[in-house]
């Protein structure tokens, strides 16, 4: 895992001092709220419905146990004893006082963490594959590239006031677990015919009110031009992205309005110019970063588990993922207990997960964009002990990628932009499908809920998506079907008129029933939908 050197540490320390100074000037009245706002946002501090919310960056979702313990301590000391893991692989605290923010940032800096650029119209935290460095199907570990991009994008002087926020994801396998093509820039590390590694660039994807799947604009950027090419993509956007309308300011609109070809042409022109400017880091830096991501000392051991305990066997089947070493798996800790708040973890649970990472996973944890936690390298022979500890703490729910593994944004319970609540709906749906026993039979079914058109809950990318809207002052929910954020990326379509809060739970069950009655061998919900189309679902819902 990456460790700061004196330079990285000095930078986060300086940031803490800068923020303390800015907060003081705000308190002294030297900064207006309008002037202070973008500054606090660039430190992840939002003003929400009831309090300040602080978003802490977890670069490419990777954490060690010391950091997870520190996150738990922050939850205890400054919040109400819990934190909320987000779809950006970050963690948010919902009950923060402005006066404490400087101290929290200092506590974070002490464990090589920060809240830098977790908000604001700048390049945000870089996300990646949560099974990076462990997955059997990856070409290389994508995280060194993400770390290089993290450094490049941190405090980038030219790109702090972009037209809008900017999100980058990096993956290195054909299976996309990071919704790569739904990012402003999605990068896949690939090999060319000569066997060299390079970066394939997808630009202009995104969710929000105008969801778009990013087109590929360049199939192969050599690794010693990665930063220069990224800079070219950003400069064209900074200069020509729309600034007249907040809702048209994301890069996806620029790429769409210019056309991918014209955008690419402009990027290539800028790239050719920037190649002469010497802005690329020495390639040795990538080599240095890679030394932090070498494999831990894997040891041979048992390759199967004792399946005599059915609950354990079910959890193993559902919540573990194939590892590149056959005596290991990656184990997913579900933060979606039945009836719980998706992504929430108490300080106690965070301490326990940290301890378990230390005991069983080479001191490493990952945050998934689906708001769960991964222990990436668990020996198969340790799985039973791990599961027992998780189960006792309420962390052993066997529902990865099932209908209960819901992504839900904070919604009207916290978010000042929300039209409707997301969390109670997630709770009702997971309860309904556990009670009626259908969660088991449904198999893989990704359900995602957003409390407004901003789509923080990724509803466009759900096999089933739910969007909260405001209908004459009453919360109303639209149902969408057929989205996917995986390598077969697609955008979900609205079924028709919306539903009330209870009505939408029924509607989800109706859609699930259509699938159950129509599915053919081995089909997931998404496959059946793609085969039979929207009509049978509409018929059942509104017919």
């Amino acid at each position, binding site marked *: 895992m990456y460790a700061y050197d004196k330079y990285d540490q000095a*930078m986060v320390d300086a940031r803490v*001092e800068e923020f303390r100074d800015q907060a003081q000037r705000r308190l002294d009245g030297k900064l207006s709220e309008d002037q202070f706002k973008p500054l606090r946002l660039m430190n992840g501090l939002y003003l929400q419905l009831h309090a300040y919310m602080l978003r802490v960056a977890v670069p490419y979702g990777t954490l060690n146990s010391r950091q997870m313990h520190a996150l738990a301590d922050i939850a205890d000391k400054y919040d109400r004893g819990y934190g909320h893991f987000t779809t950006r692989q970050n963690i948010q605290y919902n009950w923060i006082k402005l006066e404490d923010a400087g101290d929290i940032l200092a506590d974070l800096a002490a464990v090589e963490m920060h809240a830098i650029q977790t908000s604001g119209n700048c390049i945000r935290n870089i996300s990646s594959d949560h099974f990076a460095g462990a997955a059997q199907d990856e070409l290389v570990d994508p995280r060194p590239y993400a770390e290089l991009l993290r*450094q490049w994008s941190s405090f980038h*002087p030219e790109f702090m006031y972009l037209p809008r926020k900017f999100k980058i994801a990096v993956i290195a396998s054909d299976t996309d677990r990071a919704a790569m093509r739904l990012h402003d820039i999605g990068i896949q590390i690939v090999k060319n015919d000569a066997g060299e590694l390079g970066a394939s660039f997808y630009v202009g994807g995104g969710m929000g009110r105008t969801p778009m799947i990013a087109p590929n604009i360049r199939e192969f950027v050599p690794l010693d031009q990665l930063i220069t090419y990224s800079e070219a993509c950003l400069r064209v956007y900074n200069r020509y992205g729309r600034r007249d309308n907040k809702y048209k300011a994301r890069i996806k609109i620029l790429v769409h309005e210019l056309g991918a070809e014209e955008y690419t042409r402009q990027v290539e022109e800028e790239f050719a110019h920037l190649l002469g400017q010497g*802005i690329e*880091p020495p390639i040795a830096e990538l080599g240095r970063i890679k030394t932090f991501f070498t494999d831990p000392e894997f040891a041979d051991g048992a390759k199967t588990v004792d399946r005599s305990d059915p609950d354990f066997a079910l959890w193993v089947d559902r919540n573990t993922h194939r590892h590149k070493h056959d005596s290991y798996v990656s184990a997913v800790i579900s933060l979606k207990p039945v009836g719980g708040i998706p992504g929430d973890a108490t300080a106690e649970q965070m301490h326990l997960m940290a301890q378990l990472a230390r005991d069983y996973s080479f001191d490493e944890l990952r945050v998934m964009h689906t708001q769960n936690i991964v222990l990436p390298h668990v020996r198969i022979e340790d799985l039973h002990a791990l599961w027992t500890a998780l189960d006792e703490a309420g962390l052993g729910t066997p529902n990865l990628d099932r209908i209960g593994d819901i992504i839900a944004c904070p919604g009207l319970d916290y978010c000042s932009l929300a039209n409707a609540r997301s969390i109670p709906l997630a709770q009702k749906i997971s309860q309904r499908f556990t009670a009626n026993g259908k969660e088991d039979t449904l198999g893989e079914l990704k359900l995602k809920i957003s409390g407004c058109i901003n789509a923080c809950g990724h509803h466009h990318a759900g096999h089933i998506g739910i969007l909260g809207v405001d209908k004459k002052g009453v919360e109303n929910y639209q149902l969408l079907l057929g989205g996917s954020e995986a390598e077969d990326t697609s955008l979900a379509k609205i079924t028709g008129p919306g539903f009330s809060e209870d009505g939408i739970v029924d509607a989800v069950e109706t859609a699930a029933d259509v699938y159950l009655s129509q599915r053919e061998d081995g089909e997931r919900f998404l496959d059946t939908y793609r085969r039979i189309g929207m009509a049978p679902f509409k018929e059942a819902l509104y017919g």
Partner: protein
Amino acid sequence: MVDILRFRDDEAVDHAAVTVDSFVEQTNANAVRIEPSDDARDLIPHLAQIHLVEVNFPVFGDGRGYSAARILREAGYTGEIRAVGDVLVDQIGNMKRCGFDAFEPDAPLDPADVKAALNRWPEVYQESADSRTPIWNLRHE
């Protein structure tokens, strides 16, 4: 409080800057003012005769001027680049990195705050238009 902050030793241009359009028509002007929507590259053929480029920030959140300044420096322009308008102390560090060497903010800046802001960062991560060596080069010297 200071009204204009210059990080250059030469004499300041003592007359008003003209718009890009009138500059291109007017052969004797040597001070020009760029608005956010202007293309800084239009000035490149004329850089030898320019002594001052003012880059206007009508609102501090419009970041196009940062690219404009860097593009001028990348083209070899060594004259003054002055940020004018809604220029706040928390932005001038990054502006300086992008090649600005003078600031004429609408609201005067507190010199102590300016000093603190400009001395804030021990190092920088990336290459820009200033002469600072990025961390990744320092690591591999």
